[in-house]
């Protein structure tokens, strides 16, 4: 088992800087998820940890060793790829045992370890099949089997569930979570799916344009996002952002308003504001509630779209400013299109971001 430290890690392809100085500490046994939009550098970062990409500058430590210049095989890591990357000319058994074969393990040792991995992943019946005879989910199991059989110090997952359908993705997600608890190994998991990030991670690293935006526990990121990007990226549906005018500043208590928003006092967690300036107000769709009395809500608009999902109803409301907000309202409810609606929120549950 081993922790990982990334110290001012940078990666450039010529003049193009992909990773721009990343500092991350992964504790031993921790499950860390790298999230971010496409092109944010999360996969590159993972590949640098695996040794598949050179590190332009900075220090990468796994356990107590600096591994910048070590080849992948000497880093004690195992990796699961998005495309599964299982060897098509080998049986499942040979695939799972590949790392052991390379390491020169005895036949008995290989058989015992493959059997154990197969038992953990419930794929004993697949061992003699070829990859072409397996479904996507089964292939991903084989890839995970190949990773766990060597008992590496660190597991790296590069969007392992992206190619699976929604139902299977949820099953595999739960299995990976269980696997982490069973093995207790350090795991780094790359995804662009924030649900995977929220459900699996001990710690989430949000990346954008090759830079870390915030590192923290899932609920910490959800409730205390460091900036508007993190706030918008974490949570589904995404946070609503309203451009507001700063009316008054009293310490960190800021009064904001706009033509669709009645003046409201918010406690700002960060940023600096001046009266007469602009700011962005972030409200999670789940924290909006409909008001029966039109005068009692803070946001007023018309229903533009309704999605009834049973457990909740997602309503798109067009405000007087022309801007739309999404409200995820509890339970099933009917909101006729074009009807006027008034929404309220608790000022302590919203976020203010300086421009």
């Amino acid at each position, binding site marked *: 088992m081993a922790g990982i430290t990334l110290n001012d890690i940078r990666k450039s392809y010529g003049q193009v800087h992909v990773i721009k100085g990343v500092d991350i500490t992964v504790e031993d046994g921790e499950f860390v998820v790298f999230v971010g939009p496409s092109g944010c550098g999360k996969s590159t970062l993972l590949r640098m940890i*695996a*040794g*598949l990409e050179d590190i332009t500058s900075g220090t990468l430590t796994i356990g107590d060793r600096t591994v910048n210049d070590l*080849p*992948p*095989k000497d880093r004690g*890591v*195992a*990796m699961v*790829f*998005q*495309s599964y*990357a*299982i*060897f*098509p*000319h080998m049986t499942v058994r040979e695939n799972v045992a*590949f*790392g052991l074969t*390379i*390491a020169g393990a005895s036949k008995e040792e290989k058989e015992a370890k493959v059997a154990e991995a197969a038992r953990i992943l419930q794929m004993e019946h697949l061992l003699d099949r070829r990859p072409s005879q397996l479904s996507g989910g089964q292939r991903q199991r084989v*890839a995970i089997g*190949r990773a766990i059989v*060597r008992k590496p110090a660190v597991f790296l997952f590069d969007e392992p569930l992206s190619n699976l359908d929604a139902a299977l993705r949820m099953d595999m997600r739960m299995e990976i979570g269980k696997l982490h608890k069973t093995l207790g190994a350090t795991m780094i998991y790359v995804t662009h799916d924030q649900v995977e990030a929220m459900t699996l991670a001990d710690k989430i690293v949000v990346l954008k344009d090759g830079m870390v935006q915030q590192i923290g526990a899932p609920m910490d990121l959800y409730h205390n996002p460091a900036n508007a990007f993190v706030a918008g990226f974490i949570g589904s549906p995404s946070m609503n952002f309203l451009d507001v005018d700063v009316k008054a500043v009293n310490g960190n208590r800021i009064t904001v308003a706009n033509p669709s928003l009645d003046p409201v006092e918010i406690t700002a967690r960060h940023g600096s504001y001046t009266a007469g300036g602009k700011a962005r107000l972030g409200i999670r769709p789940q924290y909006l509630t409909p008001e029966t009395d039109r005068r009692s809500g803070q946001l007023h608009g018309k229903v533009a779209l309704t999605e009834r999902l049973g457990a909740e109803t997602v309503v798109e409301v067009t405000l007087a400013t022309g801007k739309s907000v999404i409200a995820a309202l509890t339970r099933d409810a009917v909101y006729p299109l074009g009807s006027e609606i008034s929404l309220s929120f608790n000022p302590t549950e919203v976020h203010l971001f300086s421009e």
Partner: protein
Amino acid sequence: MAAISADNHGLRLWTRYAVLVLIAIIFVFPLVFMVMSSLKPDQQLLSDTASLRAFLPVGDISFHNYTAAFERAPVGLFVMNSVIVTGITVLFSLLICSAAAFAFVFLNWKGRDLVLTLILATLIVPFETYAIPLLLIASKLPWIGFDGLTWGWLNSYRVQIIPFIADGLTIFLFVQYFKDLPGELIEAARVEGASWYQVYAKIVMPLAGPVLATAAILKFLVMYNQYLWPLMVVQEEGYRPVMVGLQYFFQLNVAWGEVMAYLSLITLPVLAFYLYLQKAFIASIASTGVKG
């Protein structure tokens, strides 16, 4: 409506097969002509060429030309020489060219693209342009064998083998095929602890079946049909390959029947080899878009 569509489909199928059969006939007839002519005496052979009889086993049919061909030239020796030269060249070519292509596709090294460009550039240089310099070099090269150190490679198998082991086309075929292999397979093997040699031997080569077949067939054809080079470097009968052996039949009076018998004999190994690898060959051509 459905009936009309089915009729159209049937017509299209018939037309397609008619065209395919026509093309097949065009390609097969020379072979049929060769085999039929090899069974006929010279006089009948020549007179038959004016009619379709040339393609039919009619008239005075016998295997006389075959026995005569064996009497005129050591056919068995020539075939054996060609099989040795071709077999060894194909084997080493597959090994060396695939290893070179592996280095071009998967390893990062300075000057890689330039070297590959230079190798591919050799594809447009005709053999005839460097045959003489190659002959001069080959005639002066050292060799350590059972007789100790000797100079000059002429009159040997090695002079027919070594210059042809590595070539641009074979390397190009492997490079194209390797580029299409999923990179994550290679990376997965690397992360699992495989050395570059193990990646080559355990991952890349087992997946290279189609391109191995293609490269083997193309190399086989080139080597088996070698004429100019062995003519230049081999004077001793003991090392002569089949194509040079053809000279034995073009003396003052050309015995066409014997020529056809000899050609039929030496074509058999080629056909057998092709048929053996045909499936993989077609799969590879279809997948890489490289024409043979």
